């Protein structure tokens, strides 16, 4: 150390000049930062692409073109008996109502001085087939209207609706057997007379699914109810079971081979493809336990099985992160183990548990594959009843409804599917925001 020749070490030399190693190190750091930044930018670009593509396709689903017409409801056609008994009136099927709408449209055109070369039938094609059933339901619900002429707001058919959303043009109509340029002219004339309007589509949230030929009538009502029921079941089952299992495993269970085995299996279950849970649900809940197909109860149970590992892993992690000194403090004061856990450990672990639960729920909400296997992919038009009976009624779920929409050929369903994706993403966003809010709130306590 007392050598005359100065040793060449890291601490030698001028501080003003960067030596080659430092320069190299700084360059490496700069490069690494650039890579990171590039990765973030690519991620953001992908996200923007995804959101724009979904929004550009789907926003139009929230708007719907309707036509205002005057419809006469003649007694001799709708209720010959004259007693206004809905049961008797129900004998008149939609075939009895179809001409009313056709005539009503003709009359409305005449009243407003709109002339067209189209036959009455071709003109009536502007109106959705669904409107006939809608009118029938409306009249059966309000029999006192018979004999009057009432204003009715009917759905425009999918092609006319698409014309006002830019999906259908005069050029495409030339080639399309479902719509003609003349019909588009008529629609424009109706719009000129302020009878055809495009407004916010509330029915998209409330109406049930509709048949392949009536995209304009398809909605998410049943899917939203089904998804809500399933989330309710998952929350009511997975949260208490998951938290209780985690507390037992983390705080009470002895450390031995058996608990190790359970631990490994829980971790494995979290990685099992969801469709496997679907097969399990089909075998156990439907074939063995005899629960109904397509029912939210079965979907909820399957999703509970799927969510449990997620919740258990999250809960155990947050229980583990509570410092052991807190447990010692409580035990040292003579608290029982349960008191220590429930008074001190659990409140501190709460934010983590809630976050894990909501992430598990969000995962379950977006899950499609297992639901396909238990029959929730069915075409369901009847709303399920209120809980608890409704849990056993057939229903669909949001992601399955999206899957269903994308299976159909009519381009109007592309718009519906994208709209449903927007709804699903909104729900997920709300759930994640709730998770963040709850976490902040519980953490802010100390």
């Amino acid at each position: 150390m007392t050598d005359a020749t100065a040793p060449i070490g890291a601490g030698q030399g001028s501080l003003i000049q960067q030596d080659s190693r430092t320069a190299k190190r700084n360059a490496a750091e700069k490069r690494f930062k650039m890579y990171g930044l590039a990765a973030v930018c690519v991620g953001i670009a992908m996200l923007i692409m995804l959101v724009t593509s979904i929004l550009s396709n789907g926003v139009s689903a929230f708007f719907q073109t309707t036509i205002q017409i005057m419809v006469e409801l003649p007694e001799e056609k709708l209720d010959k008996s004259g007693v206004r008994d809905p049961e008797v009136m129900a004998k008149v099927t939609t075939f009895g109502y179809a001409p009313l709408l056709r005539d009503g449209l003709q009359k409305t055109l005449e009243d407003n001085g709109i002339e067209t070369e189209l036959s009455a039938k071709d003109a009536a094609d502007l109106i959705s087939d669904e409107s006939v059933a809608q009118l029938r339901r409306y009249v059966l619900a309000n029999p006192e209207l018979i004999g009057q002429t009432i204003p009715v707001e009917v759905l425009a058919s999918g092609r006319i609706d698409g014309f006002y959303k830019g999906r259908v043009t005069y050029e495409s109509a030339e080639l399309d057997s479902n719509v003609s340029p003349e019909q588009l002219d008529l629609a424009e004339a109706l719009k000129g007379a302020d009878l055809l309007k495009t407004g916010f589509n509330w029915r998209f949230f409330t109406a049930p699914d509709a048949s392949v030929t009536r995209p304009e009538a398809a909605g998410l009502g049943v899917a939203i109810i089904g998804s809500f029921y399933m989330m309710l079941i998952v929350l009511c089952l997975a949260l208490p079971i998951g938290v209780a299992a985690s507390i037992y495993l983390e705080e009470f269970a002895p450390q031995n081979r058996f608990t190790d085995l359970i631990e490994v299996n829980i971790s494995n279950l979290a990685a099992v493809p969801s469709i496997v849970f679907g097969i399990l649900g089909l075998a156990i809940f439907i074939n063995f336990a005899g629960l109904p197909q397509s029912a939210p109860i079965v979907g909820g149970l399957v999703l509970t099985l799927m969510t449990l590992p997620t919740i258990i892993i999250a809960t155990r992690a947050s229980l583990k992160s509570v410092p052991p000194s807190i447990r010692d403090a409580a035990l040292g004061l003579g608290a029982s183990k349960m008191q220590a856990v429930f008074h001190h450990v659990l409140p501190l672990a709460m934010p983590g548990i809630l976050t894990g639960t909501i992430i598990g729920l969000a995962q379950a909400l977006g899950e499609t594959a297992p639901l396909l296997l238990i029959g929730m992919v069915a075409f369901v038009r009847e709303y399920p009843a209120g809980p608890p009976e409704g849990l056993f009624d057939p229903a669909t779920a949001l992601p399955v409804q999206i899957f269903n929409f994308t299976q159909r050929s009519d381009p109007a369903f592309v718009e519906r599917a994208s709209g449903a994706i927007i709804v699903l993403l909104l729900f997920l966003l709300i759930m994640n925001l709730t998770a963040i809010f709850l976490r902040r709130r519980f953490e802010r306590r100390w």
Partner: protein
Amino acid sequence: MNDMRLTERAVGTQTTKITARAVQVFYGDNHAIKDVDVDIADKTVTAFIGPSGCGKSTFLRCINRMNDTISVARVEGDILIDGEDIYDKRVDPVQLRAKVGMVFQKPNPFPKSIYDNVAYGPRIHGLARDKADLDEIVERSLRRAALWDEAKDRLGEPGTGLSGGQQQRLCIARAVATSPEVLLMDEPCSALDPIATAQVEELIDELRQNYSVVIVTHSMQQAARVSQRTAFFHLGNLVEYGETGKIFTSPEDPRTESYISGRIG
């Protein structure tokens, strides 16, 4: 503190609070405590000293059965408090820990208010009949821990917001709130600065009037300052146990002497 010297002298004749006979502790295959016999007197401060890993904390944790929480730990031998074997099958460790309070090395207040920290023990043991009663226990405990003057205006604030020394005194207040008979302290001052240490030491000396205090410490000066009797542990053995003055001035065992003079440890 006139009686202080009196107790110091009377230590040999005083009633024995804790008796340990042939205590062995195993952590799995590791034999952590080997055949320890010790008699701890009532209303005395007993210090356990020794190098790190010598088993003094382990032995301390046997006295309130905190080792039960470690699944691999196994305790053999007898530890008697007031003649009752605390490892008897009929003894509920929860009940035992209400009688044998503990203060830990790192201040570990609950993330709750100062008031709730102190009131927690009395609440779970049902020591207070009503709110006024509980208020009184909290005040008395905080006074005893010399924290009342600093904390009386901020009882609702979180205990974790106090300084390190205050937190440790809060932990002492929390431990004495349940009126234990024995108070175990596991290096209570190791995370504190000299001023806070002095306050806590003063406190320990006062606590001696009511409790049998057992303190584990790394600081020999501290052992000399606060304790009446000292036990020196080395590699799991109780090497020497006797009156503090004697241990520090004329130890019998050469190992004790080399530890005290700084040659080992």
